[in-house]
């Protein structure tokens, strides 16, 4: 076979794509449809407690169109990192949605399921064997971290997908995997050059993100040949040019020249990007260097505490002119009140933070401009070991804060505008990413479990 044709349904399952674009993409005779369903963009919450980033309705809408198109063309549909963090329960949830769709649309297929959640004893064993290594800027790791994580997933490479496809899976739903592996598996199975395959997969995994101007999420199409791959958006309103495709290597990647995968590193130092039409780009020259040791990246989340917050705004120029000292006094008074109500020892059971919108709320300690304007927004934030405690502490903070005085005024003032009644909002459990490490397994499959069913 001289060419393999890939369709990416969208950059993330549930974010949507145009039905007519997928129809048009299907006229290009793709060999499979892939779609990434995961992200860490939105933070640790989704790995921490397994909520999904989009609604069931959004997942079902996208997956329905993908499954109908794939079954009609008798080609595989491959979904990775279901659905958000790639935990086992999130995978099971998307499998249930797939079954519902199959029933409603009278579809039948062999389903391969890849589970990516990690066994704690296995990880501890590898840690003791020094076969877990830190990546950039890692938090400290010991066995206690593994124990207190609510969920730990491993990022699968292409191999579990290849295994499922090899066993005849017509639809694959996988837990956490590298985004590119979803698109690399089938081309690698068919023997295409790994440099081209991984480079094409990197462009494809974000759907239409690599077009010149992405107005809404949509599908993407690529054809990998012997010496190059060509990428062309199936939506006629979209176009790619060499710079838009080259620029995509910059996106959410620390370097545009290297992409680390479980089985090796793609480097694009010698890549060439050439326009083949007003809308399509031919890419060549990406090199894949196999790793000496296969590695599986870990993602973990642990409970950071429970939070209550209060949102407020300050407009009085007299307060704003002495904002720093006023706020400092307020924080001190709030902590003293908490100590008076809850007794000694309480200071070790909570953390009190204030965010100042209009000063450095976006950039925190990276901000060098600490000037303020005609009003500031405040978020008071209490983090404690239980929600009950966080809520109770916040009630004390709220009352102290709203009447905190300035020396210029005599009499009781109300110094903060609270937009809500009650002022306190309860955020529930908050999580923290606690791993930036890779494991060296014996084989690419040993950290993943595969399961098959006929739907």
């Amino acid at each position, binding site marked *: 076979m001289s060419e393999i044709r890939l369709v990416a349904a969208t950059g993330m399952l549930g974010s949507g794509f145009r039905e007519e674009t997928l129809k048009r993409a299907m006229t290009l005779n793709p060999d499979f449809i892939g779609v990434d369903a995961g992200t860490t963009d939105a933070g640790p919450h989704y790995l921490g407690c397994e909520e999904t980033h989009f609604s069931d309705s959004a997942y079902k809408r996208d997956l329905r169109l993908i499954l109908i198109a794939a079954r009609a063309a008798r080609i595989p549909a491959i979904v990775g990192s279901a659905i958000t963090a790639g935990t086992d329960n999130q995978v099971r949830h998307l499998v249930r949605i797939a079954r519902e769709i199959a029933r409603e649309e009278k579809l039948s297929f062999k389903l391969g399921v890849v589970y990516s959640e990690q066994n704690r004893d296995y990880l501890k064993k590898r840690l003791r064997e020094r076969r877990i290594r830190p990546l950039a800027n890692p938090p400290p790791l010991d066995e206690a971290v593994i124990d207190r994580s609510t969920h730990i997933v491993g990022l699968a490479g292409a191999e579990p997908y290849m295994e499922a496809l090899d066993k005849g899976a017509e639809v694959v739903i996988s837990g956490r995997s590298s985004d590119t592996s979803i698109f690399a598996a089938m081309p690698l199975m068919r023997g295409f050059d790994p440099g081209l395959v991984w480079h094409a997969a990197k462009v494809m995994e974000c759907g239409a993100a690599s077009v010149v101007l992405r107005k809404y999420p949509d599908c993407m199409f690529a054809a990998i040949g012997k010496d190059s791959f060509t990428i062309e958006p199936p939506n006629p309103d979209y176009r790619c040019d060499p710079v838009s495709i080259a620029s995509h290597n*910059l996106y*959410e990647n620390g*370097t545009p020249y290297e992409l680390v995968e479980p089985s090796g590193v793609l480097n694009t130092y010698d890549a060439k990007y050439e326009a083949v039409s007003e809308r399509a780009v031919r890419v060549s020259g990406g090199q894949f260097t196999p790793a000496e040791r296969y590695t599986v990246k870990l993602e973990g989340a642990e409970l950071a505490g429970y939070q209550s917050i209060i949102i407020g705004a300050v407009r009085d120029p007299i307060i704003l002119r002495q904002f720093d000292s006023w706020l400092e006094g307020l924080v001190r008074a709030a902590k003293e009140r908490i100590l008076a109500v809850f007794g000694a020892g309480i200071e070790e059971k909570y953390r009190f933070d204030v965010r100042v919108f209009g000063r450095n709320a*976006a950039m925190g300690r990276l901000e060098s401009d600490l000037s303020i304007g005609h009003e500031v927004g405040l978020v008071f934030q209490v983090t404690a070991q239980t929600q009950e405690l966080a809520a109770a502490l916040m009630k004390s903070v709220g009352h102290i804060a709203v009447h905190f005085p300035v020396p210029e005024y005599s009499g009781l003032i109300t110094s903060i505008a609270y937009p809500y009644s009650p002022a306190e909002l309860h955020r529930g459990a908050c999580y923290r*990413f606690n791993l930036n490490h890779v494991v060296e397994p014996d084989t690419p499959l040993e950290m993943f479990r595969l399961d098959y069913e006929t739907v």
Partner: protein
Amino acid sequence: MARLWQVSKLIRSKNAGPFELTFDVIFKDREIYEKVRDAGLINAEWFARTYQLTPEVVQIINYDAASAIKITIPRPTISGDVDDTDVFGGQQHGPLVDLEVP
């Protein structure tokens, strides 16, 4: 004197995973990119000063294929942690926008 935003088609910041933060400046054309690149205008010392960091943690990468300069730093706090201010890392590029360029 032009400002960086006037000669760029995109200035952005974004997480590169939950532990790193990356900034992209994609220039409108090759000529101005090469001018800014060769003048060393966006360098580790300047960036560190602007973002209250030490220059050793600032990685500057010139990317000719897209006429772009990338800056990557460790995230000051893990994405979504209790003291994080920007979970996606998308609003950290502000101080770059009005940089004066020749």
